[in-house]
């Protein structure tokens, strides 16, 4: 069974095609890197896989079509950066929110607290539970978001540039912890980081299409990794979230 199966996936924003007719599958246990230049559609693809943006075509997660998918506790998502409002929120509260899918009534018990501690230990932040999230450095905040994404020990982990701002020692520690979960991993990579060594396969996006699908570490220039995206695409990609500005 594929962990992720995508057929004829297309995403259009503001009339511009951002993802165009993608078809690929990722098997269980694979560690797949998703690469591409800025504006190539990596984050949009991740959001489409998770149902966070409208798309055409079909997405199947862990054998179930996305529109009927309910096993969200099996999925771990780490965003590029938190599009969040987390002032006056402790590190433990942020990570504990990741366990909500397992608890219909939502209240925390000893089991959830143990999971939170385990996840924070995995990212090297044990002992920081009661600190305010916003008082942490950017790299530490990103590690908290990784802990939130892996707190359920999910079968499928989808990460969007998870190591932005994270020091190399912590990257290595987190990569080792994730490897210990035996989960399927799809990770968007922009810079070389500790996960790159663990990749079993690489997908490269260029202008919303699949330019490469194969062994890790393709030659970047051959697949347009360093091309600059058209300004209009970049504008749409950065402004795709509805915002309230009043």
């Amino acid at each position, binding site marked *: 069974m594929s962990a992720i199966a995508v057929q004829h996936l297309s995403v259009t924003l503001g009339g511009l095609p951002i993802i165009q007719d993608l078809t690929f599958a990722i098997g269980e246990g694979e560690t797949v890197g998703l690469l591409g230049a800025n504006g190539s559609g990596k984050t949009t693809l991740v959001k489409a896989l998770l149902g966070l943006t409208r798309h055409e075509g079909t997405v199947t997660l862990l054998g179930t079509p996305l529109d009927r998918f309910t096993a969200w506790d099996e999925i771990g998502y780490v965003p590029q950066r938190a599009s969040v409002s987390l002032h006056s929120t402790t590190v433990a509260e942020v990570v504990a929110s990741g366990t909500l899918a397992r608890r219909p009534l939502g209240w925390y018990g000893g089991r959830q607290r143990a999971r939170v501690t385990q996840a924070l230990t995995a990212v090297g932040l044990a002992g920081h539970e009661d600190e305010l999230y916003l008082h942490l450095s950017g790299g530490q905040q990103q590690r908290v978001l990784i802990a939130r994404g892996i707190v359920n020990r999910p079968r499928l982990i989808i990460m969007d540039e998870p190591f932005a701002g994270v020091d190399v020692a912590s990257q290595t520690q987190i990569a080792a912890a994730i490897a210990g979960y035996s989960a399927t991993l799809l990770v968007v990579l922009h810079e070389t980081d500790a996960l790159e060594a663990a990749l079993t396969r690489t997908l490269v996006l260029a202008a919303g299409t699949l330019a490469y699908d194969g062994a890790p570490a393709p030659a970047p220039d051959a697949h347009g990794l360093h091309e600059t995206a058209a300004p209009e695409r970049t504008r749409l990609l950065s402004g795709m979230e509805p915002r309230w*500005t009043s």
Partner: protein
Amino acid sequence: MDFLAFAFIQRALLASALVGLTAPTIGTYIVQRRLSLLGDGLGHVALAGVGLALMTGTTPLPWAVGICVAGALLIETLRQKGRATGDIGLAVLFYGGLAAGVLMASVAGQGAGGLSAYLFGSLNTISTADLWVVGGLAVVILLIALGLSPQLFAISADENFAKTLGLPVRFYNYLIVVLAAVTVTTAMRTVGLLLVSALMVIPVAAAQNIFRGFWKGLWGAMAIGLLASVGGYLASIYANLAPGAMIVLLAIACFVVSWPISTLLHRDWHRSRTAHGHDG
């Protein structure tokens, strides 16, 4: 304390306590979502319901609740469709509600003066029937807002991540604005529609200065809201001043005092942060 024997004062105290508890509870989610002035706008919309009640000669509270909830649903629908990015649509809705309220009050022959009890509150005139309605709505608001607090926290903090947890985010978003609308209307006889937003936001801001963490902040905001409401009302009796204004000014005093308290309480944290250093 002989004045406590008067039934109208007992009713007013109970009503202010209920509003002092409910407004900051909903306010905690509203502030988390950076929609601090939502309550203010909903107060304007609720005035259309009051005007409608004056025009039809019926009880204002049900009309105000109905109109305010409808306005809240419209606002949230616009936000979810990404059409509330400009202020124009919201301004039309909010000031349209205010204008409609004033217009209908003048059609009813009461002019803008007929609305003042709802604009600025009228705690001492709360009837037993009003108190039952306010009490019932407050219990419902508290049960939902506290019982579903992990879910409401999750979607207020990070909507996209909450979707990947399988939470019905759209439903909870509507729930929060509906609860806010009901809270605004239950508060209109205590602090009034123009000042209700203060009671939804200021105790939350004060609690966030003092308490570390969302849930401690939630309980702290309720405690500060209760203190400001009951204390403000009692102070208004002693000083013979407007209760709604006293309640809000006491809440602001709590906020001002929360700054030095915050500095004292969190001094140890600043020290440990400097000692441990940061990456990133």
